[in-house]
């Protein structure tokens, strides 16, 4: 019976090797990132983007709800009044200082849900690595730039 168990065991080993052999002849599932694009879903949470409306004015009114709800406290907002000469947003106030600390952001998306005007959205850009910690605190000019993801967006 030892011999029978051994032959049974040997057969199981050969089956295991058959599985790997099958994998050997299949195409690998790795996505060679910079050359090939990664496929992601539409609701993927990547880098934040501050939206503008059709007239080119910023949607952000500097309310600070996103900063209040952020679990890691990564957002800092300071509001200022719109004057007639300098008008940034449609309502009374705009955000004169708007910074997100990307080293603390956890990409949860609560800020996007909290925003009353729909100004803050999490787009699909995820290649955010940098060499300098200081440059990872994104200010408003950087956040206003549209995201340029290198991805294929699948059907939602």
């Amino acid at each position, binding site marked *: 019976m030892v011999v029978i168990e051994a032959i049974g065991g040997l057969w199981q080993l050969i089956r295991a*090797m058959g599985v*790997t052999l099958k*994998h050997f002849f299949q195409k*690998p599932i*790795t996505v060679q990132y910079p050359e090939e694009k990664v496929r992601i879903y539409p609701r993927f949470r990547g880098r934040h983007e501050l939206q503008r409306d059709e007239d080119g004015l910023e949607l952000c009114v500097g309310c600070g709800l996103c900063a209040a709800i952020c679990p890691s406290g990564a957002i800092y907002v300071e509001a200022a009044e719109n004057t007639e000469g300098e008008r940034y947003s449609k309502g009374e106030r705009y955000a004169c200082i708007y910074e997100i600390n990307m080293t603390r952001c956890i990409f949860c998306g609560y800020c996007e849900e909290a925003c009353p005007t729909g100004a803050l959205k999490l787009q699909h850009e995820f290649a955010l690595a940098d060499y300098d910690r200081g440059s990872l605190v994104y200010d408003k000019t950087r956040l206003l730039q549209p995201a340029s993801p290198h991805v294929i967006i699948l059907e939602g």
Partner: protein
Amino acid sequence: MDWIANLVIPLIKSLIVVIGLLVGFAYMTWAERKLCARFQLRYGPNRAGPFGLLQPVADAFKAIFKEETIFGQVHSKAIYVMAPGISLAAALLAFAVVPVGPTINSFQVFGFRVPDIPLSIAADVNIGVLYLFAIAGLGTYGIVLGGWTSNNKYSLLGALRTTAQMISYELPMGLAIVSVLLLSESLSLTKIVEKQAILPFIVLQPVAALIYLICGLAEANRSPFDLPETENELVAGFATEYGGIKFAIFFMAEYINMIVVCAVIATLFLGGWQWPAFLADLHPIVAVGLFFAKTAFMLFLFVWIRSSLPRVRYDKLMQFCWKFLFPLALVNLAVTAVVIALLPG
């Protein structure tokens, strides 16, 4: 004394073999990484040079420039430094008896008579197989000395376990080889290859071949018997205190050992350079190519086994050797002896 045949030609052959094995080791690491990756549905190194072919160069470069600290060795710093060298020397020496090809007949070049060149360093020596066993035993010294001089209890335990594994598996290996020797009636590896002109011994001795394969895996510390090796990667093992080049040399010794085990399996069981005879008789280059193809197939098998099977726990590994393989090898030997005694001729 015939200087050319007895000194110059073996010297040149040894040089070619050593350089070939070292380059072979480097590209074996490349092949293993690529093959393991393909078995796991991924690519393997493909950034360093086309198809990742310069990856071993990058690894060597890293190993050379890595910082090494040597501190608090037991008794002897000399032995600590020499232990990887002992392993490497034993691994390289074993290749001296492997016959790579037939004898190239004497020819004239520039009016100078070159004598017969046998394509192996010393394969026709009458104790070829015995020499292999001796060198396999020597290989364990490097490991146990390395583990001991590291002045680290975990290294010592890892070294002892590795050595115990290697020594235990030499027994069924020896018995499997003796079964082959009953068929070939000679310890010389060249004669063993010549006897396989009609049929490779794997057909006549399948059980011995399987036993030898398993023992070869255990000797080379390859998966699924690589608990000592992963203990290197995980916690401790005989090479914990070795960094940079010294670790690379241990690593080199292990891979060259693996290449030698595959070459020996190709020689003893798959017919070496001799089978199929109609191909081997065409030209010595074809025969050498046959040998390389068989060794390469065995290496592929080793990597395939490594990427498919889970690791064996150490106590089960020892039980398997002593309670299963050793009796099986004895039974195989007995059956072979009986069959040979009863068959006419």
